[in-house]
């Protein structure tokens, strides 16, 4: 296996399969036309391409030759990717060139150190790793993006278009504002404005209440000495081992009997308790990392403990507070089970509960997807804007799933 004239063609063939599947799926999703990878042709031409690169070297001329050859093969109809007869001229050429360009540009760096003769372990494994890396990037990007792409594009189409060709996600830009009809209907007929407000209000309240409980608790666990401190800091972890559904059942019963079901306050009472343990755990980790000397100096100067927390500890831990708040906000915003079980009155729905109510056969599914987009976009925007806080918060707290 570790010989250049063998490694080159094998990796080339496998890489061509990866590329042809990728390009075919991308082109299908973009145009709705028929593109399909041909595994046999891919293996054959990929092997030839890999062999050529190993034999002739990696200069610009070889790259151009590969680009032209692969594109031409695709256009003739015996290439790594096959196209349906009714595919238009522009997508045909575009797909063919994309295929050629993708292969020519990527195979040369992958086979960078491969020479025709015997290979060292380093050279061989380097090529395998570069192949796997390329595959990994394509794979992860695809699995993450495709569901979101389908979600957004479905929300912009109408029922008949969807049924006619489920693959056609191309958008007719000439329709203008008409594209956003499902969104318009959601907000005018399905009350999504209220749901959005409810979700926002409940999430913010949850963050505030959680912090109000977790900050003093975390400080006590991190700084103050008392009997049972170690046991306490460990048992916090145990709390979020309890499954929500087990708690939801008695809570449902209690709320039904006391009339708290279907009320804002019931939800606002429950949500923070599900997030307090996580927040407390994350914060106490951060508080432990702060220098105790600063606080002791404050105590020496005559501040009380509470004043120390308020004037010294909290200002120092603003970044941690930001990531905890973000994380708690995310949990509350995304929460589904409790909202689903405890809310029946449409005027009190949160976004997630509202989306669940759209899941019926009478409501077209682009509405369902538009609702999903409405719920996803704020949290994504918040997350991307404050990504650094978020990643830190997620890793710091070992986080609930």
């Amino acid at each position: 296996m570790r010989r250049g004239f063998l490694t080159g063609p094998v990796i080339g063939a496998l890489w061509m399969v990866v590329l042809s599947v990728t390009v075919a799926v991308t082109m299908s999703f973009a145009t709705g036309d028929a593109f399909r990878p041909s595994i046999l042709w891919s293996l054959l031409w990929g092997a030839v391409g890999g062999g050529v690169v190993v034999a002739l070297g990696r200069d610009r001329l070889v790259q151009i030759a590969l680009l032209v050859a692969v594109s031409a093969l695709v256009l003739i109809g015996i290439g790594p990717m096959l196209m349906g007869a009714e595919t238009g001229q522009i997508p045909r050429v575009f797909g063919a060139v994309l295929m050629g360009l993708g292969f020519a540009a990527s195979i040369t760096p992958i086979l960078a150190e491969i020479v025709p003769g015997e290979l060292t372990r380093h050279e061989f494994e380097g090529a395998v790793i570069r192949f796997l890396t390329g595959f990994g990037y394509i794979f992860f990007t695809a699995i993450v993006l495709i569901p979101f792409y389908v979600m957004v594009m479905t929300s912009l189409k109408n029922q008949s278009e969807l049924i006619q060709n489920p693959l056609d996600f191309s958008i007719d830009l000439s329709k203008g504002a008409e594209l956003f009809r499902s969104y318009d209907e959601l907000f005018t007929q399905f009350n999504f404005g209220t749901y959005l407000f409810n979700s926002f209000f409940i999430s913010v309240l949850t963050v505030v209440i959680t912090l109000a409980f977790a900050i003093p608790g975390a400080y006590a666990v991190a700084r103050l000495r008392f009997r049972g401190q170690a046991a306490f800091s460990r048992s916090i972890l145990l709390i979020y081992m309890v499954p929500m559904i087990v708690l939801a059942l008695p809570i449902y019963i209690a709320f039904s009997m006391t009339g708290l079901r279907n009320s804002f306050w019931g939800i606002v009472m429950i949500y923070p308790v599900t997030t307090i343990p996580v927040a407390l755990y994350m914060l106490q980790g951060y508080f432990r990392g702060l220098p105790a000397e600063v606080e002791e100096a404050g105590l020496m100067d005559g501040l009380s403990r509470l004043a120390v927390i308020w004037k010294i500890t909290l200002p120092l831990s603003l970044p941690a507070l930001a990531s905890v708040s973000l994380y708690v906000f995310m949990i509350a915003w995304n929460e589904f089970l409790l909202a689903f079980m405890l809310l029946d009155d449409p005027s009190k729905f949160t976004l997630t509960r509202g989306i669940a109510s759209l899941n019926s056969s009478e409501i077209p599914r682009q509405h369902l997807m538009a609702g999903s987009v409405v719920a996803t976009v704020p949290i994504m925007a918040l997350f991307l804007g404050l990504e650094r806080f978020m990643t830190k918060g997620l890793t710091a707290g070992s986080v609930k799933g």
Partner: protein
Amino acid sequence: MADLSPPSGTGPLAKREARLAWGLLSPTIMAVALVVVLPLLAIFWISVKPVELGDLRAPEVVLREDLRGDSDVAGDEVNIRYRLRNSSQDQPISGVSFADQIPEGLQVTELDERCTLEGRDLRCDLGDWEPGLRETLMIPVVIGQAYLDNGLRPQDSPASSTGTSSSVLTNSTFTLENFTRIFSSDEFFEVLWVTLFYTVFGTVGALLVGLFAALLLNKSFRGQGILRGLYLFPYVAPIIAVAFAWLILFDPFSGSANALLLQMGVTSDAINFFGERPLALIMVTVFEIWRYFPLSFLFILARMQSIDTDMYEAADMDGASPFQQFWYLSVPQLLGILSVLFLLRFIWTFNKFDDIFLLTGGNAGTRTLTVNVYEQAFAVSNIGAGAAVAVVIFGCLLTFSLFFLKYISREEGL
């Protein structure tokens, strides 16, 4: 000479500190006790009770009143009619009584022997009621001019009724039927097997995929931050949004995945991904891996970036190949975080409810223990059986947790 030995025992300062600590912790402890510990205890209580969904509403006295007869002129003789019934068909109510105000201008001519009238206040004691009992009470009255003038009708002053009933939840009937019921059903072992499959493969899959993603991004290049943010999307998005996106993507009739597979010639018939027996379980497990690989990815990446690079340089000098470096250097370093992640994710996957509930509703052989709680309590309307399943879950978790506590004390802290 002064005593120079250090003070022993807890001094007043230490005591004050401990008191402050408990003071700061008490709101959290109370909230957690109320919402976590109390419901857990309640679950054990309910699991030995023969309680159904309908029993949650306590039986009550339903009362309607109206005026029977013509009441156009003064002197007319009419009846005030009270219709009462027990709302429950199988629960008795004891000590039923009701009170009402007779409107001005109505002269009561005759009174039922169970009722008393003081001024305008009517009070009737109806004693104990059988389940499903209905009763009608007629009180004959004579219309006075005042009644016609003031326009107040009997219905305008609502009658208040009282009565005590024992709820199944609080009385002393106990039963083990819930447990025998869930253990003896054929499905139970299938449910256990499905839970095990889902938990083990979901956990291991998410770890391996996360490890792969972390290896990809463990080098700095332009756009690394963007990719890292992108790969976290599945975990950050609301579960309901991504679950429905998957359902629509894999719809058997108009889903894009099926259209793609048909077009590529992989299958000749549309595949019902979430509706066929072995496939649905595999799909929900794949969904679980897809949704939670970002979490393992994040932790593994954080650990990787804290490994000293000198070691790899030394290994390079000694001629270790990339795979050898991974196997002999990285893996031992990552073993700690991997095992902690495995334990945590194992328990959380075991606890997962929303994902399967939204994707299949527990149909097509995907019913796990947690979905079974919902199924028993709300679909079959047998709250007691649901609670019994919850007790089984709790037992499993207790076992895991003991193991986990023992283990995590030796592992690097998370």
